[in-house]
Each structure stands twice: as structure tokens, then as C-alpha cells.
């Protein structure tokens, strides 16, 4: 699947009837653009160095690129986003950064009202996205919060529809359970 020229891959694993995991792998870190950015910073630094004859500039440039790289890999670049749906427990969203750092959020099933595909206006474009509707504890019929999924990879609609269908199948199970109980 392709999104804005970037390739992303959807992987779906079924652990059991009530437990499914979807992971969307974004485009890996592009060496070309990273090295281009680094080179441009260094070139600018070298130019400054030639102008000022101060070697501090060069060391500062190296330091800045290193810091920038660490920040980029650790806080910005998301490698993979995955969604784990366990029928009786809840929905867990994990996004793993390029550096290996993972941030996870788990939403209990009792809070989940529904999973829907929604439209939004994003950067002069109308895009579709998948989101979890959270139930308002005070009023079970209303939605208290909308949690968007796959925020950084932004898969296209056909991809979303697949995930949506699977999610709905699992949510169906939950509904029947609650009916029986």
C-alpha cells in the first residue's frame, strides 16, 4: 500500500478467536534524506568555519546533528504502529519509534463504545482515519473522547476498511457476551 509515495505494510496476526493484532509498518528511516540533512548542516558549518576560522563551529555542528538525530529517532520517527484487540480485555495501541522505544496505551473494553472510520480535514486534505470512541462514564450513550489510531502512518482507506472489519468482528463477540450476561 502506498501513501503519499511512502510504502507502508499492513500485517495482521490472529492469535486466537478473540485476539488479533494489526501492525502497520511505516517506511523505515531513509538514509538518503538523513544523510542529506546531516551533510547540509555540516556544509553550512564548514562555510561558517571558513568565514570565521573558529573550530568551535565544527564541533558545535557535529554536536547539533548528533542531538538532532537522537531526538529524531527517539521522539519523532515512528517505525511501526500496532493495534492489539483482545475481545474480553480491551484494545492496546503501541507505537514503536525508530530507536526501539515503545509507547503503549491500553483501553479497557468497558470504556470502548465503538471503533469507527472517520473523516477529517488534515493539512488541506480530507483523509479517513480509524478511531476508537470512548464511552462517557457519566452517560453511557454518549462519547467522551475520540482516540485516533495509526496517527503517524495514516494508512489509506482500503487498508483501514480491513482493520475496521476485523475490529468489528471482535467487537461483535463482546456485544453478544453482554447480551447473554
Amino acid at each position, binding site marked *: 500500500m502506498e501513501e503519499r509515495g511512502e510504502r507502508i505494510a499492513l500485517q495482521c496476526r490472529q492469535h*486466537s478467536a478473540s*485476539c488479533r493484532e494489526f501492525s502497520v509498518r511505516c517506511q523505515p528511516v531513509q538514509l538518503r534524506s538523513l544523510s542529506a540533512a546531516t551533510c547540509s548542516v555540516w556544509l553550512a558549518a564548514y562555510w561558517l568555519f571558513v568565514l570565521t576560522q573558529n573550530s568551535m563551529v565544527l564541533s558545535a555542528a557535529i554536536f547539533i546533528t548528533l542531538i538532532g538525530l537522537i531526538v529524531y529517532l527517539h521522539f519523532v520517527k515512528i517505525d511501526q504502529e500496532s493495534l492489539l484487540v483482545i475481545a*474480553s*480485555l480491551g484494545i492496546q495501541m503501541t507505537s514503536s519509534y525508530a530507536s526501539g522505544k515503545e509507547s503503549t*496505551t*491500553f483501553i479497557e473494553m468497558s470504556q470502548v463504545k465503538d471503533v469507527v472510520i472517520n473523516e477529517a480535514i488534515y493539512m488541506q486534505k480530507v483523509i479517513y482515519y480509524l478511531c476508537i470512541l470512548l464511552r462517557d462514564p457519566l452517560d453511557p450513550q454518549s462519547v467522551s473522547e475520540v482516540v485516533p489510531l495509526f496517527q503517524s502512518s495514516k494508512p489509506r482507506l482500503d487498508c483501514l476498511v480491513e482493520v475496521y472489519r476485523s475490529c468489528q468482528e471482535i467487537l461483535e463477540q463482546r456485544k453478544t*457476551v453482554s447480551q447473554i450476561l
Partner: protein
Amino acid sequence: MVVLKVFFPSCCSSAESGLLVGHWIPEQNSAVILAVFHFPFIPVQVKQYLSEVRQVTQVNVSVLGTWSNCKKKEESLSEFLEDLGTIFSHEPWIQLCKETDSKFWSCSVIQKHPSTPKEDEIILVYYDQRKVMLSHLHPPGNLTNSTDHKAEDASKLAVIFDTVAKSKVLFMKDRYDYGPIKLTHWQSEGVEASIIVELMKQASIPVCMLLTFLLSFVSSVCKSRVLKFWPLSFIWSKLSTCEQLGHRLEHLQVISSNRKAQNQPQLMRKANIFVSLLADVALGILLMSWLYRKNRIGHLADTLIPVADHVAKELQGLLQWLMGVPAGLKMNRALDQVLGRFFLYHIHLWISYIHLMSPFIEMILWYVGLSACLGLTVALSILSDIIALLTFHIYCFYVYGARLYCLKIYGLSSLWRLFRGKKWNVLRQRVDSCSYDLDQLFIGTLLFTILLFLLPTTALYYLVFTLLRLLVVVVQGLIHLLVDLIDSLPLYSILLRLCRSYRLAAGVKFRVLEQRTGKPLRLLMQINPLSYGRVVQTYRLPTYSCYPKDSWGSLCKKLFLGELIYPWKHKGEKQD
């Protein structure tokens, strides 16, 4: 299809075969295993023991099933285990079986009453008993305000956490006595440490009482009427040191009060205040030890007077420059001279004042330095006050300049309206057109012309002194910000998050362990620690707000109109 969830403590996975003891939560269809009772045992004793535990913990602990940990499957044992189900009747009866060579356990559930639908799936969730017991769950931000509602609508995970935390007693009980029943569960090892803690707890009571007494004495002195008279109270309100001291006094009162903290947030608050106080005092003493070594105070005093002198000289130079043709600007000579002389006279006064003070400076500094033992924040506040005092002449210049400029701006704006044949309607708050008399027009325009041509001179003086004032305000503001940071940072919580991240849980996360078809799904439940941002946000200590109240836009407008600006603190009070 109903899913049965079994929460199993990971420390019990190597336990010998026995009974599974835990709490059954019917509405979630899940079993929380708390411990394993080993063979052999006498059923009556077990039942009696469990009823005792139930009484103490208020948790409905019961035998939920059996646990077998053996090399290979034995027919006799499995029959025996099934029979146990008749003795400890429980619905449903869980049979967990681990074969040592395999990671995948088998689990079966026996239902006596087939009225409930077939349960065709079992999820095994491993959890770390110790961490779950000690952790404190923080629900997502928006739910915190509806605490009263939470009781009935408590999330499922919170119930599980609660169950484990409440059955703490179950784990304690076994510490020293080796009774008839053998259990496997998490066990604490820090017995000696806990003895020290107990001793400290005992010792803290008289210390607290002494402190409370002292504090009540100090606060009564502070509240005495002698200090309430006008000039004194005015000074108190202006000095940031006094405010900081008052703040710390409040903190000490909170710590030393012998009321027990009722809930987790209050406990954390006390601990945070305590740690931040300790850190503050430690930093203060560090500063003091640095200051009083090698006669640094004397050096400081020796440099301070020349610095003040130097500042005054620089100001004089600045004024001389302004009285000439500053930056090529041509100003009204007469007004320029008048203003310049006025300010020069002020500087002269200031220099003589400083010289009068110079013999005492070292002594003053020495005594002021002692205050650092009350904490770094107090020392910083004193520093801020000293800066305010030493730059009093700049403040005076600023006020004169601003007043003059403000007057001109207001005069010009109203005369500009007259110039256009308009007037400000106070009742309707808008500009109305108005027909003026000829003489009014003439005088208005004359004054307008004069003010307009004199404006650049005043504006330049105002600009220069405002820049100086802004410099002072920024320095003072930074000091206040630092003090505020030390005051409000929840150090204890941050340390806890750093070293024992499971203690502050934002929630949980699950990891799917590898699995085989036909065997139950295995999940590992881990604690998701709170992010640092939320730790600070949740446990931030309240301080008197000293952040800029007005936005940059309104600040610029104030500067343009010549209204007085003050440091970020005491905004409401300094209005004169």
C-alpha cells in the same frame, strides 16, 4: 462465546502442585489467583485459614481450582484433583496443569451447572504480584474529576489491582510462622529495612509534636498586631523573602501535622513537600558552606561597592550621551537639558548613599548569608530583594520617564481627536464628532503641536530607562521562576518514577506470549508507568502563581502607552 480470564502471578509458575487460591470476579468472568497452597493439607484447616483471611482483608478469597506441576501426566493425580473440586466447591472449577518441559500450560474448566453457555476460550494472564500490589493506578486525566462516580463504574483493571493490593495481609501472614499450610506467593525480603522504618516512625511522632509547637509559636508571632501596622505590613507585602518564608512555614505545618494522610494523593503531597524541603535546605547549606569558606563574603562585599559605583558611572555616561545628540537624533535642547540634569542629580544622590552604606555592607552580607540555611529558595528571594534595592534608582528613573511619557501620550491622543474635530464620549465609550469653538481649536492645536515636537525627547528617555528596567525585571523574574520551580517540583514523585517506575502506573500493557493451538492464549501483563509530564502535572505542589498575567501583546501595549510594569510576582498589589 464467553472468555474466561485467569490472572496468574508469575512467581507461582514454579510452585509445587496444590490448590489455587484467589478471588473470583463473576461480572468480569475472571479469576485472580493470589497464591498456591501446597500439598499436603487438611481441607478444614484451609477453609478456616481462608475465612480468617477473608475477615481481615475484606476480599472474598477462596479456593478456585487446582494447580499441578509435574513431569508427566499422571492419571491418578488428575482424578484426585477433580475430586478436590467436590470438597472446595467453586463455580467454575479451574484446573491448571504445567508440564515442566513445556511452556504451554493446559487449563480446563469444569462447570457444574451447564446453564451458562459453553466457555470455549481461556486467557491466561501472567502478572507480577509485587508490582501490581505496590502500584497506584492513575486513571486517564479526564476521569480524575469524577471520583465519586468511579466507585460503581470502576474499571475492570482497577478491581484487579484493588484485589491484589487488599490481600497484602495474605502475604504478610506467612512471614515468620510456618503453620500447617504452605503457600507460594511473592514474599518480601527487606525485613531489616522495615524494622528501621518502624523505628523511624516511632521517633517521628515526638519530633513532629515539637515542630508543631515551634511552628505555632512562630506563626503566632507573625500574626501579632505589632507587625500589622501600616509601614511594616506594606514592606512585608513587597519583599519576596517574606512571602517565601511564609510559604515554607505553611509547608512545615502540613508536614508536621499529626493527622494521617487519608489517601494516596495526600500522602504523596506530604512526601513531595518533605523531599523538596530537604533538597532546598541541602542546597542552601551547600551554598552556605561555599560562601563562608576562604572569606568569600569579604570578596563579595569588596566587589559589590565598585560594581554599584561602576553602574552609577555608566548611567552617568548614558545620561551625558542622551543630553548630547544621541544616535544622531535631534531632540529639543531645552527639555533635554532639564531632564538630563534632573536624572544626574538623582545619580549623585544614589552614589553618596552607596558610599554611606559601604562600611556596613560586609556585615550585612554576612548575616544575610546565614539565611541560606533556611533553604536555597530563601537565599534566592533575598538576592531578588537585594537586586530590587540596589537598582532603586533605575526604578525611579523609569517611573519618572514613564509618567511623563504616559502624560504626553494621553494628551496627544485626546488632542489628536480634537485636531480631527472628534471627541471621546465617556458615556457611550466611543468617539463622537463634535464642533469646537474657534478658541478651543486654536489652543488645542497649539498644544498639540508643542507636545508633538517634544515627544521624541521624552520618548527617548523613556525608551532607555524602560530597557534598563526590563533588564532588572527579567533578572528578578528569572530568580522568581527558579524559586517557584524548586517550590513546586514534586521531587519525591519524580524519584519514585525514576527508580520504582511501577509504583506510579498509568495503566497496563499486554504482551502476547508465544502460543500453540489448542492451548490457552497467554498474555503477560506489565505495568505501564506514568509519563514524567503527567507525574509533574499530577503532583505539582501549588505555589502562589508568579507567571506573567498579561500576554506579550498586552505587555507591548502597556509599554507603548507608558503604563508601569512590574516583575511577575506581586502583580495585583503594586498598583500605585
